[in-house]
């Protein structure tokens, strides 16, 4: 028995030693370029079964667009097929990391834009989508602003992902409640604070916020920070000329904490998720809700929107000092993005991608009345007023800035989001909140 045990232990050690023989991945650089040029001018209809990993069910949101386009391509190329795998958005990063570790990334997968893809880039796990589109002659199908935004977010010269949205963010408000409190849409930050005060005095909860989802609150900190310190404030703090503990950053955190103390978010905001906060706006339980243009899909849903077709309005983040940040500067993002796994990429995938970028713009506008960061030619004649509102605001944007966590690594953004709850409850001061973020930067490096 003792001998058997010794043998088994030796076996275990041997297996562990073999595990250490795995390849060391490059810690920087883009690895080898995988160039696969198209073999013909027309799609040769190659045989391929792709695997796609998504966070949207096939009948929801971008899942509808993806499956619609893939099904349409299947009709054009009967040799093509696909497997659609669903993972929850909260598990996405872990799933992709695990698949990357076992060199088993799917052909196409949804991921988070910005810093998260840099690990995959440096480990040479994903394709340079920009060069794929150039080789297949369809780079012009991407909206230049989306390309610029994505490159900016990842801090790379090349494009490593594809957009699945071109969104602006701002304040949605309940028109009936504004009328009840006799307030108008604010343009300056001072006006905004007066509006909040008047709403509170009228017995109306001024703000709904998804405190339990956290990111809805850090967006508010970012809003005030950008208006007071400029669009590149978060970039400066991440790249070290500034620190998160500098005065403008602490002031932005204090602003939101003061709002919480004043009762603008109601009691227990840290227990409210974004869906509930959105419902509170639509059912008249709160007057203002910060969210992105994707919220228009909730507004277009008649069963969910108790406020009706014209009950909700939108205004951009009010201005503090127009010379620092003007009213035509919007918070923008491309939502979750698509990455192409390098391991499985071949010419067949390239032709599929060409078909995808050539059709998604029109498909999104026809089916959902939404812009996804691609050019489109169709006019959605049944566009709702809310979709028109979003397109109008998109057209109004002259410059963009990114969200609070865009320049943070995963460890820093987790700290920033977790501790925003204690900022709201008053258990952590604004300075301590920013110190915790700065400390996370130190420990994550």
């Amino acid at each position, binding site marked *: 028995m003792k001998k058997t045990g010794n043998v088994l232990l030796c076996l275990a050690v041997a297996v562990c030693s073999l595990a250490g023989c*795995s390849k*060391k991945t490059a810690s920087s650089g883009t690895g080898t370029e995988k160039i696969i040029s198209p073999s013909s001018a027309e799609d040769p209809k190659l045989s391929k079964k792709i695997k796609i990993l998504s966070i949207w069910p096939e009948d929801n949101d971008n899942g509808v667009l993806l499956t619609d386009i893939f099904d349409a391509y299947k009709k054009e190329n009967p040799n093509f097929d696909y497997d659609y795998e669903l993972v929850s958005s909260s598990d996405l990063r872990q799933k992709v990391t*695990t698949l990357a570790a076992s060199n088993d990334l799917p052909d196409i997968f949804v991921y988070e834009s910005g810093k998260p893809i840099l*690990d995959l880039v440096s480990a040479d796990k994903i394709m340079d989508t920009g060069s794929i589109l150039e080789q297949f002659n369809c780079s012009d199908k991407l909206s230049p602003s989306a390309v610029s935004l994505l490159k900016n977010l990842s801090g790379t010269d090349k494009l490593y992902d594809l957009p699945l949205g071109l969104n602006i963010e701002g304040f949605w408000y309940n028109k009936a409640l504004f009328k009840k409190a006799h307030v108008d849409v604010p343009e300056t930050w001072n006006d905004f604070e007066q509006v909040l005060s008047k709403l509170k005095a009228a017995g109306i909860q001024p703000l709904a916020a998804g405190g*339990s989802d956290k990111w809805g609150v850090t967006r508010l900190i970012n809003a005030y920070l950008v208006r007071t310190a400029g669009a590149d404030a978060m970039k400066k703090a991440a790249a070290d000329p500034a620190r998160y503990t500098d005065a403008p950053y602490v002031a932005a955190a204090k602003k939101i904490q003061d709002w919480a103390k004043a009762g603008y978010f109601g009691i227990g905001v840290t227990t409210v998720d974004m869906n509930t906060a959105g419902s509170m706006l639509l059912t008249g339980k709160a007057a203002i809700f910060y969210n992105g243009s994707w919220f228009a899909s909730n507004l277009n849903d008649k069963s969910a929107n108790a406020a009706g077709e014209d009950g909700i309005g939108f205004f951009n983040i009010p201005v503090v000092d127009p010379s620092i940040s003007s009213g035509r500067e919007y918070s923008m993002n491309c939502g979750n993005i698509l990455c192409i796994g390098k391991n499985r990429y071949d010419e067949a995938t390239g032709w599929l991608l060409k078909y995808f970028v050539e059709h998604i713009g029109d498909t999104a506008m026809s089916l959902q009345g939404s812009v996804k960061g691609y050019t489109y030619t169709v006019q959605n004649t049944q566009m709702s007023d809310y979709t028109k509102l979003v397109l109008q605001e998109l057209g109004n944007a002259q410059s963009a800035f990114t969200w609070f966590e865009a320049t943070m690594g995963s460890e820093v953004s987790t700290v920033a989001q977790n501790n925003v709850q204690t900022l709201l409850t008053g258990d952590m001061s604004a300075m301590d909140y920013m110190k915790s973020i700065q400390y996370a930067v130190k420990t994550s490096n």
Partner: protein
Amino acid sequence: MTKVLKDKKAIGIFVVPGFIIYTLIVMLPIVWSFYYTFYSGSPGLRWNFCGLKNYQMLFHDKNFLAALLVNLKYILCVMAGQVGLGFLLSLMFMFWLTKFKAVVRTLVFFPVVLPTVAVAQLFAKIYEIQPNYGLLNSVLAHIGLQNLVQPWIGQPSTALGSLCVMDIWVAMGFYSVIFYGALLDIPQETIDAARIDGAGGFILFRYILAPLLRPVTVTSLVFSFTGTVKMFESAIALTNGGPGNATRSMSIYMYNVAFSFNKVGYGSLIALIIFLICVAGSGLISRLDTKDIY
């Protein structure tokens, strides 16, 4: 039977296959995890040997110490609640409940079989304050205790306690059934004899029931301890480790470190610490079970 158990070949046939599977599935990952503690990054993504750096980091990691403290408070509270209330319920079944015994036992045991996420959703609604008061806040408001209406899972001061209440409610039925079974095993003559001698109430419990129930009590404490050390799914489902880090256990921190921060090596070290705490704590509790109870 004795002949079979003395035969080494027979022992080999019965024990070795199971032992191999156990080694591969349980022991090997532990050894593999220990090996990972000397690396930084994530396998396949920036995976580099870093020696004892993770161990040095652990001693200065304020987040780990905070998570350890949360775990300790949770362990003490929930162990006492689950086992203590479970025991009291078993006494109720044994000595007080005369009618509807089976129905009451079933209702008390029912939460044990409910999925954790479903229970968390239930309690989230009970504790709710915005947009509407949940059951608890509604009752408090109606009986004139408006000053006690608060966001029970939305503030650090009450979040952990609220989580503990939920987990105690879920598991106390399980321990009540274990203790009830043990009480039924105590010969009635022993209890009758003690009563004839004038023992009742606390004296009966202190000198008759407690010593006879010690093995089951120790087993229950070990079960409860190993469950509470691994505090994870109920905290994730109810509060997601928040607000802030008020309910973030070592397991949640380990999960974040390994899978969100891509520090699998450091996460493996935290997992190893959890394992050692589990083994040490279970060993310590098991020492309470001495053999000289008669």
